[in-house]
């Protein structure tokens, strides 16, 4: 396989800068809504040593001294810019897995005859020209390596001009680069696992690449074995298949027979939401965004092809099946095109956070639906998933919210367009 991972640099901050050029070159943080923690930092802020998740009150002094601009998160803007970015990148390969709001994998298998570094540069340039957003591109034989290549591009450890293709590196060059990268930078190797690995003397990416996969399988897990194989260029993960990953929950499935109408797609999407929401609640998370996608069968080359996806930001992070279903169906209506034989639909929850720290929308009219949901789950359990759903309630207005120092919804509200004299 040949896979690219394209990732937006400081995505939220970059979105803000597109519409407020004065922020260019200045230290900028984007804060989560109520708890006021840094959820995005410009390079200037990173250079000042501010870590992800630092509470605003702890950096106030630093902010005053260095003129840090703090903005509330503007999820309507970020989601729209994300949807645009994903659509632009889909022009480079139709086989795309949207991994999070600011990154996606692209399958470049059919592009072997191209100069992939130049192809990556073309992606970068087009996203920058069309949307004003800077991205980095990592290219390699597996998803895990593509993630790593992206890291190398971002940190300028390898590659040129924010594009890194591992195919250009000899094995000796890979060894040299990999031995400079900490093992915890590897996709799917979390903090706890990396501590255990370090205790065994596996501290760098190179150490893990050279480790014995079978032994690690016995002592850790099959997941870690796969990671080792992926680091050695043996692809174990298909596109759309996520590793143990806290950033998102996906529920998607191919249909038994082709589905044509919106209603049937809606039922499918509602049932996937129900499945994913159960998972969400069981791990005690709330989702800040819901993503919905549909597609035809790409292997039926002679039938009309379409794939669509949309990310919908929520006013309040939620684990409420009703709220999440409403958002997903609202999005589905907007991406649905009649006249196609759909083979697959899916939903993903992004921007996951711990349920204990909800951000509260002061204009919210939402009630606590815990008991209602339990009842709904029971009814759906008896009569089949998707029996009880909220198809008619979809309306974008419900997700608006007001926040201090939030930039305007430049691209999604007529009344908030950028003004130019």
């Amino acid at each position, binding site marked *: 396989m040949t896979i690219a991972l394209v990732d937006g640099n400081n995505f939220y901050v970059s979105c803000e800068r597109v519409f407020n050029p004065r922020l260019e070159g200045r230290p900028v943080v984007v804060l989560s809504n109520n708890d006021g923690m840094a959820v995005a930092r410009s390079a200037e802020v990173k250079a000042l040593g501010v870590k992800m998740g630092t509470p605003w009150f702890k950096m106030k002094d630093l902010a005053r001294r260095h003129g840090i601009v703090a903005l509330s998160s503007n999820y309507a803007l970020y989601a729209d810019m994300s949807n645009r970015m994903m659509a632009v990148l889909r022009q480079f390969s139709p086989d795309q897995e949207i991994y999070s709001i600011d990154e996606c994998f692209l399958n470049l298998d059919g592009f072997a005859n191209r100069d992939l570094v130049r192809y990556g540069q073309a992606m970068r340039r087009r996203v920058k020209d069309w949307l004003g957003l800077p991205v980095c591109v990592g290219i390699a034989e597996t998803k895990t390596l593509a993630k790593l290549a992206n890291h190398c591009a971002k940190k300028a450890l390898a590659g040129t001009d924010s594009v890194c293709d591992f195919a250009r590196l000899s094995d000796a060059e890979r060894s040299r680069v990999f031995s400079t990268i900490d093992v915890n930078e590897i996709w799917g190797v979390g903090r706890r696992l990396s501590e255990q690995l370090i205790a065994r003397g596996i501290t760098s990416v190179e150490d893990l690449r050279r480790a014995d996969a079978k032994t690690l399988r016995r002592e850790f897990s099959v997941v870690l074995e796969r990671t080792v194989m992926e680091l050695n260029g043996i692809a174990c993960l298909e596109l759309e298949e996520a590793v143990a990953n806290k950033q998102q929950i996906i529920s998607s499935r191919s249909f038994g027979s082709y589905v044509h109408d919106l209603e049937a797609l809606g039922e499918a999407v509602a049932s996937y939401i129900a499945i994913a929401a159960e998972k969400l609640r069981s791990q005690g998370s709330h989702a800040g965004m819901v993503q919905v996608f549909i597609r035809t069968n790409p292997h039926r080359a002679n039938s009309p*092809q379409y794939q669509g996806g949309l990310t919908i930001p929520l006013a309040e992070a939620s684990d409420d099946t009703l709220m999440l279903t409403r958002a997903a169906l609202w999005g589905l209506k907007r991406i649905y095109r009649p006249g196609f034989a759909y083979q697959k639909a899916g939903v993903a929850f992004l921007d996951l956070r711990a349920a204990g720290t909800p951000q509260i929308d002061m204009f919210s009219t939402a009630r606590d639906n815990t008991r209602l949901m339990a009842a709904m789950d029971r009814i759906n359990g008896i009569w089949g998933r998707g029996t009880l759903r909220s198809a008619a309630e979809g309306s974008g207005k419900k997700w608006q919210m007001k926040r201090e120092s939030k930039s305007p919804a430049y691209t999604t509200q007529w009344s908030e*367009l950028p003004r130019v*004299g």
Partner: protein
Amino acid sequence: MNRNPVPGGAFLPAERLFSAFPPPCIPRPGTPLLASPVPAGFPSPAADFVEDRLSLDEHLILHREATFFVRVTGHSMNGFGIHDGDLLVVDRSLEVVDRSVVIAVVDGNFTVKQFCRTPGGILLRSNSQGHGDILVSEDQEMSIWGVVRWSIHAI
């Protein structure tokens, strides 16, 4: 490439655009349904002429992902038919050529101007008798944000 952009940012293969047989019973949004009943065995001649209703989005937007809307404030561009309160359709994917009307960023500020290459350098013209023109100096930071394709003016 025989691909044509459709709303939603996806691509529709050419064979679908030119398909002679649209799928039955699934009208696209905005597509007029045939009002007259069609007797079996006798195809209505009007069926050959059913076309999609005209869409302003299709007319105004060339590259959906790269298109942004911007609101005009002030009167400096009246000479170009751009007035206070107008809605500008800005396409960031278009190449800037001499005399394009553009959204420029000058020293961190947005401005709508005509982009002119002159012997003295780049001139951002506003066509109100030289008032408000900007001859971009070397120490000034200037970039082009996007090219204005349409100005939508309420009557």
